[in-house]
């Protein structure tokens, strides 16, 4: 029961992110604005093949897709 999220294919890292997000959103409005900025992540990556840059993707979106694909294949 304690690790139901593991069965759904979530990683511990993801678990911590979701838990921290819920805590930040529960704050009073003053400290919340400052805290929520910490939860934002904006990383992009591209794969280089044969000296050419491939499509630039958002890391967060690519992670979500990979997670969903992994859970389905189980």
């Amino acid at each position: 029961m304690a690790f139901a999220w593991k069965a759904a294919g979530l990683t511990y890292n993801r678990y911590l992110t979701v838990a921290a997000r819920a805590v930040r959103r529960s704050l009073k409005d003053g400290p919340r604005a400052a805290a929520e900025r910490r939860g934002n992540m904006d990383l992009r990556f591209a794969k280089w093949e044969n000296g050419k840059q491939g499509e630039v993707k958002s890391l967060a979106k690519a992670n979500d897709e990979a997670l969903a694909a992994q859970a389905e294949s189980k």
Partner: protein
Amino acid sequence: MSSLRFARSAFRARPSAFRVPLQRRGYAEAVSDKIKLSLTLPHQSIFKSTGVVQVNIPAESGEMGVLANHVPSIEQLKPGLVEIVEEGGASKKFFLSGGFAVVQPDSQLSINAVEGFPLEEFSIDNVRSQIAEAQKIANGSGSEQDIAEAKIELEVLESLQAVLK
């Protein structure tokens, strides 16, 4: 508060006590062992090797209180309340979002978490509205991940609601 001041002055008076023969033994000297607590977040350290009397942590294996000279151990923390009892009996309460607590052999306790705030910074209304939202998702027909994430949020929020009451 006055007992705290007395304990401090007794501590300061110690070096001179080496020169003159010790007349009496005070209570403050008898209980000198404290645990050194470091409570750290990625962006802030709330306690930095500060001597405290006792720390109560919500470990995954159950609630536990850590005093000085505790057996070395590593505990995964549930999202929950950490209570720090300082010298003089005053206690501070923080809600942590989950992480790890490491008890080291030399009476050191390191707690790492992603987010942690004192209780007075939380708003019960925000907690309640989030619970309603998360329950909708958890009982809905979303993907398995969405439901699992909503259940994690519920676990956090319900524990938060219980300590705020």
